[in-house]
């Protein structure tokens, strides 16, 4: 794991960006992405690297069950495509089994990928899945997107956009603009979610994008929103190519 030497102690956004660039990597790993986002004030699930089966089991015990195991590899962004995600693991033996399966599957499906092990994460509480992201428009620069997770985004394109920088009003209106908004205010058995927490995430994202031109893309997919908060469960940060000269 030479390519990741020294990463663990890095905390600031610029340190993370600088180190990734030095390693000529444009896409940050999930663990790095979350560290960067946490630094920017965005709530993310605790995400710890475990380089061995035994380490994964120990970490899971520390975090408390149930946990999630995800493949940790700087070369694989779509972890579920290579069988790299296991949810709701309730014991050390389940964690151990999942560890073996994830690594075997990844080695089979992506034999050339560098593999660090797994990340161990606490299972997020049940809630409504939403997504938020930042991308760059060639003319308008950084733009934020918000939508409901899953089918609503992929099929129905039920998303709202705003140009950075956002005001609090922009963040509030953006959330209320999507067609699925009634699902966030309590619908049948689904309790209403913490809209303020979602607004805060959008505002922090806007600040981060505004202050860090090196970031090309941010994906928080999904964010789990509950009655008392919202937390990004998966995240991906992509850097701009280094400008020549």
């Amino acid at each position: 794991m030479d390519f990741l030497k020294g990463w663990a102690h890095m905390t600031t956004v610029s340190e993370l960006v600088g180190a990734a660039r030095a390693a000529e990597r444009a896409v940050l790993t999930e663990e790095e992405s979350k560290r960067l986002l946490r630094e920017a004030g965005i709530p993310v699930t605790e995400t710890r690297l475990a380089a061995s089966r035994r380490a994964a089991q120990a970490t899971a015990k520390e975090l408390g069950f149930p946990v999630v195991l995800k493949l940790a590899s700087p070369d694989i962004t779509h972890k579920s495509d290579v069988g790299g995600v296991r949810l709701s693991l309730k014991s050390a033996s389940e964690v151990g089994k999942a560890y073996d399966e994830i690594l075997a599957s990844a080695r089979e499906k992506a034999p050339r990928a560098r593999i660090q092990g797994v990340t161990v994460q606490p299972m997020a509480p049940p809630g409504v899945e939403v997504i938020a992201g930042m991308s760059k428009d060639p003319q308008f620069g950084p733009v934020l997107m918000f939508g409901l997770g899953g089918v609503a985004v992929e099929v129905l394109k039920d998303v709202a956009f705003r140009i950075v920088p956002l005001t609090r009003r922009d963040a509030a209106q953006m959330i209320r603009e999507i067609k699925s908004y009634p699902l966030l205010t309590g619908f049948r058995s689904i309790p209403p979610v913490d809209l303020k927490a979602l607004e805060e995430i959008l505002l922090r994202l806007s600040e981060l994008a505004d202050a860090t031109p090196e970031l090309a893309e941010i994906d928080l997919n999904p964010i789990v929103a509950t009655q008392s908060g919202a937390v990004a469960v998966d995240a991906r940060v992509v850097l701009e190519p280094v400008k020549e000269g």
Partner: protein
Amino acid sequence: MEKRRKENLDRAFKPRVIAVVGDKGSSDYNWLRNMMDATKNGTKLYSVQVDERETPGIQALGITNLKSLREVPEPIDYVLCAVPRKFSPLIVKDCADLKVGALALFTSGFAETHEEMGAQLQDEVVRIAREADLNLIGPNCLGLYNAAAGIRCGGRDQFVGEGGRVSFISSSGTHATSMTLGAYQAGILPAKGVSMGNAVVVDVADWLEYLGQDPQTEIIAMYIEGVRDGRKFFTTLREVAARKPVLIWKGGQTPDGARAATSHTAALAQPMTLWDAMIRQVGAIRVDDIEDVVNTLKALCWVKPPRGPRLGLMTMTGGPSVIFSDACAKQGLTVPPLTEESYQRLSPWFTVVGGSYQNPLDYASSFTSVEVGRQMLDILNEDDNIDGIIQDVGIAMGFRRNAEPDFSEKVLDMIQEFKGQTEKPYMAVMTGSGREREALDFRPRLAQRQIACFATYADAARTMRRLLDYYANKATLAAEGSVLEMT
């Protein structure tokens, strides 16, 4: 925009000396004629044309023709140039050396052609202009319009004279013209305008900033096909729209339209979702066609701000009542039942047979006098369930016309008086169905009294929606502004 560039645009908008380069008899010296009214205010107008065959025609207009801009014996404030594109760098160089206020290049055939020569020529004229800090307008444009100064960009039927308070920015010369003509015909006096074409040197954000600072301009309407520097535009729009209503009519909303825009003004394709987001963020007003532009201007100028979506409709007969209600509902407006008190006050004029007063108020057979019409308006005005009133005035012009020749005039007086007294928004509808000629004669009589009248129910409903969204958005922006000031 730098101070000197702004001052030079001031000079160009109110020129003491104008030069038109390359005008020809084959176009009936349209550019020179466009500027003739400026000379009544003491402005000097010169022609520059090297083709000697054109000299007699130009002199016949009483205009001095010269061979070069350098022969003009005094500083030039505004140059309009229509020479073939290969000569344009020479003219731009002259204007740069002579430090003119602004140069509008009517000449086209630049980046919008997407061929090498066009792109190279554009780069060349832009480079010369930038090095000299010259306000180059266009290329591929009709240039400046200023009613008060008597300079036109779009033909001799364009209004000149004491200007109004609405100014225009347009990627397209035709739309620059049609917006000023359309507004004028509807009774809204235009102030200033610019057909900005490819908008390379003085770009769209510069025009917005300039008209945003112009004390005469209270409302800005723009037709725009694209922006090069989106961030500069966004920042400028946010600043200007916080102070003045800005209407945005975006051309190239679809992939096919965007392709047409690319070959029209070399505009880059941009997703409409981002434009909509931006418009909402800054509190501007999206409009979708020329009627929408003119209708929204009428509403902003003449209709009081609505406080909610609940409308009281006064309609003529049953079928139109249904269609009118549908048109409002499609815009998210409502046509709710009136209060019990209102029904009691209305009941003397209505019977169960022939005419409903549930809202819509079908007043076709109850409109027996001007006074009754006024009382019905008063009842709607005093009804707490109603935020705004739209009245179909179709029959007002025809009803009892034979018995009372000046009946329609009295109705208009009554509406005008009511409109002046109510705090609720009032709009009129006069459809033309089957009687377009009469409607065309009648609508200006409403406009003279500053009563906003629309040609269809759908137009009235859409315009009420625009107004409602604009003022609601403005209120949330203002609320946030005050919160930010406090913290």
